[in-house]
């Protein structure tokens, strides 16, 4: 029996998965939040390589999208070293504008509303829903960022923040940690898994082999598995913190069947 709300030695799974997932979300959020710069490229190279290694070390199932991303990133970064960095950054800015900012032959929207609304427009009900989710955890979109709340970078940023909050809660209070995991699962099921596969597919089709196609594959592969990681963490916390009596705590479960769960 452990003291309620404290970590056990086996919470070590959370100690690994927590930062693993936070890093993944931060990486993916930045990939789409704005155009790359040198600092971002350095970070992406380092973080993506580390996370993909960790993926293998943890024995996570091999994923064709993650593999495709790995190959594309390897090529991208090895070519980068042979080219003028400013030139590459400028080309990436062109790619970003062409793919996402409305000046290319086919714009791939970065916002959930476009994929989830019957009208296919920005600023639809998804936006109000995610705004509500942010609000419930005391967050709001920064005024400095001029994209809607349901922009992919904001949604992924929210997941990153929930991952961080979970980590903090694991140490401080198990109930709260489980609650944050429940929120993540809901956000995944209500939002990310409902539009990211379609978005990624469109981005893969629209982008030439290179940085953005790699990030699209990585996003697709990661969102496909993250539900499982949330489950693993939830199970771990539940196993290690069995209630003392029947009146104990609420059972943590998803409200919806996990039809979007990647197998």
């Amino acid at each position, binding site marked *: 029996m452990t003291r309620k709300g404290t970590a056990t030695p086996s919470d070590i799974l959370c100690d690994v998965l927590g930062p693993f997932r*936070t890093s993944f979300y931060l990486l993916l959020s930045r990939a789409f939040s704005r155009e790359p710069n040198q600092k971002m490229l350095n970070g992406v190279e380092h973080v993506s390589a580390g996370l993909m290694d960790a993926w293998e070390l943890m024995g996570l199932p091999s994923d064709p999208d993650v593999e495709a991303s790995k190959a594309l990133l390897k090529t991208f970064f090895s070519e980068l070293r042979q080219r003028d960095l400013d030139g590459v950054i400028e080309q990436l800015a062109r790619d970003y504008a062409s793919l996402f900012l409305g000046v290319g032959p086919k714009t791939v929207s970065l916002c959930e509303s476009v994929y989830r609304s019957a009208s296919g427009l920005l600023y639809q009900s998804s936006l109000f829903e995610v705004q509500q989710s942010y609000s419930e955890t005391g967050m709001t979109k920064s005024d400095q960022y001029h994209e809607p709340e349901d922009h992919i970078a904001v949604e992924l940023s929210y997941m990153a923040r929930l991952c961080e909050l979970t980590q903090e809660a694991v140490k401080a209070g198990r109930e709260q940690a489980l609650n944050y995991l429940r929120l993540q699962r809901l956000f995944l099921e209500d939002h990310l898994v409902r539009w990211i596969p379609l978005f990624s597919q469109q981005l893969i089709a629209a982008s030439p082999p290179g940085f953005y196609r790699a990030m699209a594959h990585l996003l697709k592969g990661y969102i496909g598995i993250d539900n499982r990681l949330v489950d693993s963490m939830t199970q771990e916390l539940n196993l290690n913190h069995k209630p003392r009596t029947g009146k104990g705590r609420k059972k943590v479960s998803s409200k919806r069947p996990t039809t979007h769960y990647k197998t």
Partner: protein
Amino acid sequence: MPKVTRRAFMKVAGVGAAALALSDRLLVSRAGAQAGAQDKEEAGYTICDGCNGVPFCGIKFYRRGDIVTRIEPWPGFPTATLCSKAYGTLQRIYHPQRIKYPMKRTKPKGSPDPGYVRISWDEAYDMIVGHLMRIREKYGPHTVFFYVGDPKEPRTAVQRLAATFGSVNYGDESSTACRKGANTAEVLTYGYGTTGSPPGKDTRSMLIWGTNPPYSGPANDWQELLKAKERGVKFVVVDPRNTPTATILADIHLQPRLNTTAALAAGVMHVIFKEGLYDEAFCAKWIHGIDELKEYVKAFTPEKTEEITWVPAKKIVDAARLYAGNGPGGMKTSPQGTTHDLNAGNNHRAILMIPAICGYIDVAGGVEDPTNPLEGLGGNWSNGPPVFCMRKKMNDMREHRVDNKDFPAFAELNFDVQTNRMVEYIKEGRVKAFLAWGLNMMIWPQTQEYQKAFESLEFSMAVDFFYRPWTHNYVDMVLPGAVNYERLAPFAVHGRKLFGRMPVKPVGECKEDWQIALEIGVRLGHPEIFFNGNVEAACDDILKMWGVNYAALRKDIEKGVVIPPKKPNTYRKYEVGMMRQDGKPGFPTPSGKVEAVSLILKKHGLTALPEYKEGLKTSQEYPLILLSGGRVPYITHSKWRDDAPWLLELQPQPLLDIHPDDAAKRGIKKGDEVVLKSQWGEIRVKAKPTILVRHGIVGIMHGWSKANVNQLVPRQFDPITGYPPFKEVPVQVIKA
């Protein structure tokens, strides 16, 4: 269950800090954020810019925070019958392809891909101002051309910018292909611009020429015409097409061959003079050149007119009798449709002479001229108040207009410059930079020549809602414009009623047109003239003429603010000195009369009588005549294609209207792909056999980027208006 190993732990721990450094901190603590601001629905107000006409229709919308959720007609606004175009604006504001940031090209002009990248507003303004200062210093201020396309809303602010910068060369879509051609003809003839007036209670007949209000005007206009029909008003409708206006209103529908307007008008006047149906006293006292006109139309017997125009002689006689025999008669002309040919100016002048010889000008129920136009506007609101626009300063610089030699009458009568010879102006180095709000290069005939010319400009920029390759591939910078729901300026003017707007914050980093113009002005070193970039302060500077301000408009947002009229409504104002600025009786023309013979045209060596001139001739090779620019309802000009998919559903692709007999002769069936070609170019479109066009004429909308009909139109221009022959090009249609 993932395996936890020390190596995995170390790997993850090793990237944590680097991942954290990637964070853009897009979410912040909610403390201080407005709690629940978006839960509550509030009303906002704006105007629809879906048509090209001003004033527009009023939209009341509902917002959650800064997000527009639904719209409805604005109760209290004079025109607010919202049609699908207004609903289409909802698709435009939240269209995923909207440009939301300033964009700069990174590849040289002429590259297939301009390589646009996002820049900050500061960088954009620095670049604009840097180029403007340099070009002014090196080549002089008049080499910078300022242009406003569609919407017309920024005209006021952009004219002020041009004048302050010191360039007289400001133009707009009206001075390129739209209103200013007909307006020039009207000013030459009557001394003021008018497209007629709605039928009043005294009106007994109406002449509607070349316009189809239910497709191209506010719904209220059409309702007024329907009511007149119910009252028993007689209608003569002139249109080569079978339009709803013709089929619903016309007692007599005349379907002339294109570019025979002046001949048909001469034929009608021939009958009116011959049968003594004209107003002899008015003609004698108030028409300059009446004898020359009478003499000229003598040759246009009904039979001769039929030969030229294809309109049966009997119909010409009947139309003349119906209109001249049922006075007073009103008139409704197209703002531009009758001026799209090589005799544009005089064709339109010929129409205007019909109500004039009948004595219908400014009589109750005739072609009425408002007694109490809002003081200080000097014409249509869309052009902007002359004082705010610094028209006097522009006038003082008019010797530097680039169009002076090409189109002298046009240049004398308009503050805005005719742009159709822009290719030459750029080639000759007379225009070095082009600043545009709402530019669409498809407006010009032989569009590709303008695109090419733009590549040699030293700087060009365009403000727009969307990236449009046929225009923006040829400029240096595209700036993101705010749409109607996001604009405070301009406020709306309906007669003597003023309405404010209550907009939402623009999406992304979009800015309203006025704001962009004002901020450029501020950065050029004129913060006071441009109100430190404050749009409301700029509006207040105009509103003070009428003793109100924007706050007052907001206070009475729904019902508007009325500026009381100063004089009782009167007619025949030319008799009592109420038409001329000098207060003398007469019309505001050089002769003081309606000018059948125009003194201004004479002075410039142009044809002074509204004579008929044969234009481009059909041949065996090109036996059909092209009527471009006809519309389906709810698509206006080049607007509303991919911007609003709901509207595009009404006609998803370019269709060629062709009479079933003309189609059959060519083995063409509905939906067949056809080649439409002229001596100057060709496009591929689908055929739509229809009796809506008459034999010998084919019709198509303009503004389709993949089938730009203006590629078929030559760069030849009417010497009075400078307009190209959009509606008289000989063409052939072949099954593809």
